[in-house]
């Protein structure tokens, strides 16, 4: 069977594994949606009205959902599969490495697309929030680049995780602080923390999505594009690390 079909088959299998594991599916899908509803209620006051608030957090939660699916959930899944010896077993078959990796990344892409659609629809139907037609390509490119890059980073972080018990600590410790300082859930646009956040891809993904949603704000479309480039650069770095130090066997 050709490599592409094998990769597609792997993505289908990974997808089944994802949906059949209730905890993983619950946290990845339901968490961002709960945040969306909480933000809807909690941020309306501080951000000056529900419409204004929705304009802030709709792209935020989109970024958050994408990161949960592509980075957190992917990295957890890979570490668990590694610890269970699944990666080792597959390594012993003729399945090409790239087909496995492509299938592995394909699965969160699907979940991220689903989440983005749900969140976008919520914004549109509840708050009448739409993306201007000329910014639609920016939104789609930002989502695609973001999903691929965070998946690559998710694969890369697994190299640092010693075992499944340590996985939540490693994965959350790398992503939660960034989510907090990157203007995602908490508005934070200035100061030292914002400058630090500017070095990392979370802030840039959020900026790009926000630029797509908010043509009137200070962010220009050009800024969205440069943010996508930063996210992509992080993704390439992640891919490089993943290819160099990815581990197929359980660690002792």
């Amino acid at each position, binding site marked *: 069977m050709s490599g592409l079909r094998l990769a597609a088959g792997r993505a289908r299998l990974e997808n089944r594994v994802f949906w059949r594991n209730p905890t993983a599916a619950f946290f990845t899908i339901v968490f961002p949606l709960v945040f969306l509803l909480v933000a809807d209620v909690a941020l309306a006051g501080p951000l000056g009205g529900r419409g204004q608030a929705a304009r802030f957090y709709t792209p935020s939660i989109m970024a958050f959902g994408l990161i949960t699916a592509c980075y957190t959930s992917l990295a957890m899944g890979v570490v668990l599969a590694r610890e269970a010896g699944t990666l080792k077993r597959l390594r012993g*078959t003729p399945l090409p490495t790239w087909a496995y990796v492509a299938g592995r990344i394909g699965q969160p892409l699907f979940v991220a697309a689903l989440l983005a659609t749900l969140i976008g629809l919520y914004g549109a139907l509840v708050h009448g929030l739409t993306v201007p037609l000329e910014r639609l390509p920016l939104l789609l490119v930002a989502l695609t680049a973001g999903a691929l890059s965070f998946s690559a980073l998710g694969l890369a972080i697994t190299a640092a995780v010693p075992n499944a018990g340590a996985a939540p600590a490693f994965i959350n410790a790398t992503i939660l602080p960034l989510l907090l300082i990157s203007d995602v859930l908490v508005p934070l646009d200035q100061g030292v923390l914002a400058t630090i956040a500017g070095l990392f891809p979370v802030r840039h993904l959020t900026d790009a999505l926000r630029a797509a949603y908010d043509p009137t704000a200070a962010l220009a479309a050009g800024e969205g594009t440069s943010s996508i480039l930063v996210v992509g650069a992080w993704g390439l770095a992640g891919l490089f690390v993943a290819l160099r130090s990815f581990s197929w066997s359980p660690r002792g």
Partner: protein
Amino acid sequence: MQGLTKRYGRREVVRNLDLVVQAGTVFALLGPNGAGKTSTIEILEGYRERTSGEVEVLGEDPARGHRAWRERVGIMLQEGGVEPYLTVGEVLAATRSYYRRPRSQDGLLQAVALTGEDDTPVRRLSAGQRRRLELALAVCGSPEMLFLDEPTLGFDPAARRAAWRWIRELAAEGTTVLLTTNVMEEAGALADRLAILVDGVVVAEGTPAEVVGGGVSKTVIRFRLGDPAFRLPHDLLDARVMVGSDGLVELHTEEPVRSLHQLTEWALEQDIGLRGLSVTSRSLEEAYLELVDTARQ
């Protein structure tokens, strides 16, 4: 495989190992836990890199194992690695799709007595069933070379015998099999040749019969003495005598007829019953334990 050495840090787990497995035969690698069996088999499977030595599997260096080579090799790992949330049928179908000439799904299920379990999630299988599925997965690409790392661990006796029968059938079809085990009966039932590995060194190699015959004492006489205070006759002390604290006596002898005669003559004279008297030729297990013991001293 020539002069294979594997070192972790300063610890040598495999030392200068030479092994040849003839095509179409079953070779068993025996040894206590930590003897270097898994290290050796995983080097041959291409999972680990060797420190030094020459290794060739199906004419290629497994460390470079590319896709075409993997196509010809089947591997059953010591620890499973089957996705728990998939069903038996899904895992088997997926793994079959990685090979160009897979065996039929039904035939595989039948061979490991999992017919009708297609829709059972892997996590609902018993430990023995899961292990059987792993055996089917290793065989599903019709490999020329089959590696089995402690294949029947956790099998019930009936399943174990069925698995042995299947492995023998595969060998009869021309599959070369290399297995590790610490179940002596398994090596005796399956292997054309075997090697006993202790601390990374081969201490015995040959057919099962050669290995059993290779030790010093070949027959074991066992009985219980009602009163441990009885002194055995001096002539008998030619044999190796071991007296357990529970009164069980074991005589290891190279001359079973003479020893038995001396023993029964003495027992008749003294009017002592030899409860549970048994005479057995040394089993592979005893030969193995003795070899491991000697090697460790």
